């Protein structure tokens, strides 16, 4: 009985945690949704679908840095928007090309640290534009959102076995692109 009480308290905290995240993120999430869907009703549907997904990932959200939680929430909204549009047969993978806009433009303030950061961003931008949008979606869902193969398959409308194969190919393309850029692991770590 005692562990159950502890779990209940912990869940109260989870609910509060999610409510706080929602309050802090909902405006930005909504703005992200309206980028991809035209009407207000669809945008609200996308946001509420994203909230459901976020609640399912509450354990993961607790673990990641607070600064990245909003990014995670926005990414979730974007993927739910894609899912929403795909269900309405209004979008194909290749037309979902807005990802590169997410990266900020280069900062002109020149300190050594910032120069390094800007170099990294530039490389990242080049890399992300070099790989297909389909791969980017797949990799985001796997590596950022930590979705299972089944969840990814559902969003992309493919079978879980296909997810694994596509992921392998996408990762190889990323590695190839990095190699082409003269990537050295130590530069990133």
């Amino acid at each position, binding site marked *: 009985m005692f*562990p*159950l009480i502890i*779990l*209940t308290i*912990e*869940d109260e905290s*989870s*609910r509060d945690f*999610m*409510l706080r995240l*929602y309050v802090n993120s*909902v*405006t*930005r999430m*909504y*703005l992200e949704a309206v980028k991809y869907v035209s009407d*207000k009703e669809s945008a*609200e549907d996308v*946001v*509420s679908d994203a*909230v*459901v997904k976020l*609640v*399912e990932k*509450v354990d993961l959200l607790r673990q990641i*840095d607070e*600064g*990245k939680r*909003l*990014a*995670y929430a*926005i*990414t979730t909204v974007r993927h739910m928007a894609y899912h929403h549009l795909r269900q309405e047969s209004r979008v194909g993978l290749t037309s979902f090309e807005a990802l590169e806009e*997410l*990266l*900020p433009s280069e900062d002109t303030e020149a300190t050594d640290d910032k120069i390094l950061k800007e170099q*990294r*961003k530039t490389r*990242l931008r080049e*890399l*992300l534009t070099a790989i297909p949008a389909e791969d980017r979606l797949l*990799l*985001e869902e796997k*590596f*950022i959102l930590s979705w299972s193969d089944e969840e990814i398959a559902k969003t992309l409308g493919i079978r879980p076995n296909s997810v694994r194969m596509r992921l*392998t190919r*996408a*990762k*190889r393309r*990323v*590695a190839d692109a*990095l*190699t082409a850029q003269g*990537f050295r*692991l130590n530069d*990133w*770590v």
Partner: protein
Amino acid sequence: MKELRNSEKLYDRYADAATALVMDQYLTVFAESLKAEDFAPVEISAALNDRCRKLIRKGAAKELYRSVGKNLLRGASAAVIVFLFLCGVFAVLFSTVEAIRVPVINFFTEQKETASEVTDKDENEYVRDEDVLAGLAPEGYEPQECKRTPDGNLTIRYADAGDGFILYDELPNDETRQIDTEDAVTEEIQIGGADALLVDKEGYRIIWYSASGEVLYQLKCNQLSREETIAIAEAIESRREEALSAESDSDPAESVPSKHAPAAYDNVPPDIPIISDYSQSDQTHGDAYFPHEIHHVDVTDIPVRYSYIVEGAVDSDFYATLFDMTDDEFIWTSVDGEETGNDSIGWTVLP
């Protein structure tokens, strides 16, 4: 890198690690850009707020159940693993360490013995009507045990306040038995006219067979003299012979022997007179006859202990019942309602 290419598996691991790193960097950069971003405030509808808050509450509850179930499963799994581990440790220790094995075996043996004692308690109770030593043991000896096992073995044990004991056994003569006569003085004697063996070792032991040879009798007295031991054996045999002759005199067709009555009457030593006068009932053994109409017998002055027999002679039916003695009054129960013939009461006073 060429080497990595040669190993597809290794290259996939590299690709996996590199992709994870890239995506982590991507999320970091994205988060930083969001921090720096200015966005126009927008009003969120109350409907969306309500819907999302409900979804969060509902989702949190669902996660609670999932989490509880997962934790319970994890706890149960841990408990099973711990249990199996302890079983394994115990099995290894039990099979390899004698210091553990012996106490464990002893524990279960003791438990078994305790259980047996409880189970056999009724069987170990002193059954008066089976006691062929009743009235034969010297003063100071008290009955400790009188038990007949299902396979016919009878064991009677008397003991005094010290270490003295009298042990009597009746054993079916259906197997070869060994008697310890090492460093013992043995002597062939007669008990009831039958050949017997007297063994003098840590007391006296007499072994003899029944007339039919089917039963082996053994009497052992560790602190009585040779003569006392023989006297008890002779008395036992005399009682048995009298009982046999009484049985042969009676018409088997008219007799429905009770389980207890014949043995109880065997207990009355032949050398003590049976009296019929109730007023003289201060004898150690006695037998009083009275009409069956008397259903109340005052036994206040009768120094009777343990139990006595009421036998009703009702027409051709004999019936005997063993009663426990009360302090001042015995309430006699009519045998079968038939009011003919005489009834009798017999008793034996034990030391």
